[in-house]
């Protein structure tokens, strides 16, 4: 990929992000923040790339592995915690008649 096309990707991605969230009910601010936060753990792909391309360079392998750990902590924890929050909204109103 040339640098210019990567810039296009950046531009279009940003525009998409701006468009996606128009009206959010306040109820969902916390889960939305948490879910978007999990997605930002996408750097795990960069960490994976680093490890695969390390070619036996142990310090680099370790850096990559730690980075992958941090990213997955973000991703897995983020999605689980968001799910936990959202599960509460969808719970049936058990106490109503």
């Amino acid at each position, binding site marked *: 990929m040339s640098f210019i096309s990567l810039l296009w990707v950046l531009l279009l991605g940003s525009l*998409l*992000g701006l468009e996606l969230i128009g009206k959010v009910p306040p109820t969902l601010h916390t*889960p939305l923040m948490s879910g978007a936060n999990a997605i930002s753990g996408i750097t795990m792909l960069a960490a994976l790339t680093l490890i695969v391309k390390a070619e036996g360079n142990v310090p*680099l392998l370790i850096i990559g592995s730690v980075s992958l750990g941090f990213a997955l902590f973000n991703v897995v924890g983020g999605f689980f915690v968001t799910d936990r929050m959202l599960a509460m909204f969808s719970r049936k109103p058990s106490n109503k008649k």
Partner: protein
Amino acid sequence: MNLPVIIKFVIDLVAVLLLALGIKGLSKVKSARDANRLAALAMSLSVVGLLFYYLGTSGIAIQSWIWIIIGSILGSLFGAILAKKVPMTSMPETVALFNGCGGMSSLLVALGVAIFPISGGQENFDFFKSLINEVSISVSIFVGAITFTGSIVAMAKLQGWLSTPGWTQSKVRHFVNIVFAVASLIAFFDLINGNTSSIWLLVIVSSFLGIGVTLPIGGADMPVVISLLNSYSGIAAAAAGFVVDSQLLIVAGAMVGAAGLILTQVMCKGMNRSLVSVLFGGSLSAQSTTSSGSGEYTNITSCSVEECALTLEAANKVIIVPGYGLAVAQAQHTLREVTKKLEQNGIEVVYAIHPVAGRMPGHMNVLLAEADVPYEQLKEMDVVNPDFPATDVVLVLGANDVVNPQAKNDSSSPLYGMPVLDVQEARTVFVIKRGMSAGYSGIKNDLFDLPNTSMVFGDAKKVLNDLIGELKDLGVGEK
């Protein structure tokens, strides 16, 4: 193009589509849970795509597999455990912690590439290409470090491990932060000039900048900061995408960055604060103690729990206004028991949720949902405000600024213009509060002085427990 390349290309496209649908769906109550799962699916898909691509092209060494597995297992395990165990009241600091770790990950990737240039990563190496590479590495480190230290400070402050040091409220902090910012700029240019060792300077000063920027910000503004830092971590991910040449990373990072920015804006609006004043104004209480609203209370009526119970028993319609104090006291379950009793007595109970109730926008909804409060009983501010005149009793639990009539009546008040709940329109208002201390704004609450307002002093949980006892004695809620 051979097969693995095509397959990865297709998978990446699908992943981007699913991520976009995920973010979109997360902004609607009905679709939110599925959307979250969709996003999670997209993320796993992208990992599979990447691994498949490397297996099909360069292959993955055994050694690499080992480190991949170690990192994945540890990270996922800790993440999953924390996500399952953490109490719902600590949500803000949990999100901050996760966010900080995302920033750390981007930082480490950039650092790794900077110290050990990836072989085969830069075919047709030329000056332009290497410039881009260095710029993206620097940006990734800079933003990643700020995200990490900023989030950790935010977490520590929310947990109560860190308080706001006095000097951070004076002008000194601007000077200190400018010094850090200039130093990181110097390190940045030095790095581009080919002086690799200045990378450490960049790491250090941008880490300090993250601390220096977050430390002065007060507790109530913290959610806005976390949302902003969340946006930063997206930018850090996009920068890391430039470092390793991954379009998927750039798209996803840019999406989160932009969406986070919008969400930050939305939150600021709900709190009647501008982003600039949140970031550079210091904590609100520090400025406003000197300005208006520090007057004395003249007409406080305090009453016992028993009186409160008697009034509640005679009511037809009750509105509960839960706030930060309720969340801190973890009294949402006790509150639910009280309202259950009232409902059993045929009293209509509704919860009025201010957009920034709780410790984070939307946090109160989560807490009440956890305590089994039916979703239909949670009413948003605009919906519930016309109902107050026809309401017998309003119970204000640990909320303060969001029920201050000053925001509507007194144009000299710092709160003026903030959307508030018109609780004073109700026949009787009970405010359950520990003492007469002011809310976050540090401003006197005119509500407390009104003749139809009575204060019930005490910890929210204890008062509610006593209230349950009194209601029981009155025979409320028994068949």
